[in-house]
């Protein structure tokens, strides 16, 4: 499905960069004892054609919205969005009423992005 859909239209990307991973460092001070900051990254950029790292649902959604709007109507559907599709865990120092404890938090650092 992806192969044929991609082949039916090929043009230059319009408007901004294509969906991809950008560096983002956030403070953890209000949430945890450590680390003070973490580079969790963020996914940013366009999910117009060609959709970066899309899956079948995103491709069908994109074509549905495009054909609705090219038919003169307008679509209020949510368009594909640039989001993380792979993560890494982060070791942190957390606390509870008994004191501190080390903890591995899943899905903290974005490692790859895609249009979903």
């Amino acid at each position, binding site marked *: 499905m992806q192969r044929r859909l991609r082949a039916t239209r090929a043009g230059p990307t319009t408007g901004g960069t294509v969906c991809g991973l950008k560096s983002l460092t956030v403070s953890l001070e209000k949430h945890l004892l*450590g680390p003070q900051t973490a580079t969790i990254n963020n996914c940013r950029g366009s999910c117009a054609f060609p959709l970066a790292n899309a899956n079948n649902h995103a491709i069908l959604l994109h074509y549905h919205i495009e054909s609705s709007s090219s038919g003169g109507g307008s679509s209020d559907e949510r368009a594909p969005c640039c989001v993380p599709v792979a993560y890494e865990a982060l070791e942190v120092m957390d606390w509870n009423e008994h*004191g*501190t404890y080390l903890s591995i938090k899943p899905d903290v650092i974005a490692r790859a992005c895609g249009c979903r």
Partner: protein
Amino acid sequence: LRRCVFQVTSPNYDKYAAARNVNGSIQLCENTHCCVGYYVIMNGQPKVDYLACDSVEKSCPSSVCETHSHFNNRFLRCVCNTDLCNSNIIWTP
């Protein structure tokens, strides 16, 4: 390799499970050059909660262990980058 004071008093830790590369009260750091100290404030005084190599923090610019308070003064925390530097904290109540 950095050497840090190792001490566990928090009931959240199994002292023996937590002690990697520990000889007596000294830990040899595998993946960091930072020592850390966590203290709980009880009756206005800091009480050791966890002293060890710092596996969590990536940066420790100071050679001595200056404390910073966290979560409404429930915890003190200090990081430092010299051998056994987490045994003496610098604390102003």
